[in-house]
């Protein structure tokens, strides 16, 4: 099965890249973009077939490597 992990900066953590993107969008004429936050999308192909076990394992991967929980939060999506 597949799992998809979204890693994003926690609210309140400054995101200079998001701010730069917001500035570039404004230069391109896209008005009204109030905020931009940039994150990462990580797709995993797992041998595991039990969604609950798969999710628990990805959760552990997030805590130990995929996200730095000092500044980032993560969301896991398990796909069939």
């Amino acid at each position, binding site marked *: 099965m597949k799992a998809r992990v979204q890693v994003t900066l926690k609210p309140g*953590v*400054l995101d*200079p*890249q998001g701010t*730069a993107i917001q500035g570039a969008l404004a230069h391109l004429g896209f008005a009204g973009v109030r905020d931009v936050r940039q994150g*990462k999308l990580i797709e995993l192909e797992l041998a595991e077939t039990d969604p609950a076990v798969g999710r628990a394992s990805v959760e552990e991967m997030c805590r*130990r*490597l*995929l996200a*730095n929980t*000092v*500044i980032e939060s993560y969301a896991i999506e398990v796909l069939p």
Partner: protein
Amino acid sequence: MRSAVVVFPGSNCDRDTQVALRDVAGAEPHMVWHAEGTFPEVDLIVLPGGFSYGDYLRAGAMAAHSPVMREVVARAGRGVPVLGICNGFQILCEAGLLPGVLMRNASLRFAGKDVHVRVETSQSIFTNRYAAGAVARMPVAHGDGNYYADDATLDRLEERGQIAFRYCLPDGTVAAEASPNGARRNIAGVFNEAKTVLGFMPHPERACDPLLGGTDGRAMIEGLAGALA
């Protein structure tokens, strides 16, 4: 002082660190490849600057879980001193040996220049040859040096004297414009609670010879060599 310099794929200050340790501390360091599970007993472990594993995922994230780091974490737990310079600082944070994290520079620009740092305490094996409040000039060379921790963590670090260095103006004034990266509270270096681990963004090893434009980094290695002789 017996020392080891850990070399990761993408380290680029390992040789500078080797030369500085040899010249200033007077003993040849062991160069330890990242894939080694163990290495000789030493008095000091140095994680050098560079771009280990190409900064993939996050700066220092991959190196923090390399085989050699299991050994470094175990030895740090036994009190063996560890100095992380630049990428080494990032690795120490990712490995959980130091609090906080180093984020992309607020300017989004690589910072390669000399900066001034104020020595916040002389009460450590790393800073005993500096006077508290002294100003040292050393180069920085990083894209991810923006130290971040939440307010509660920063307050705790301040209370326990774990802030080692802050970016400052040449006269020692700590001011936002003196920081090359936007680090919270101008933090350039932090200790662990026992002050046996130091993470430091500037490069003392590049400031050990007048030919390189400055010698303010020598005192760190001299202090370590004196304390760990």
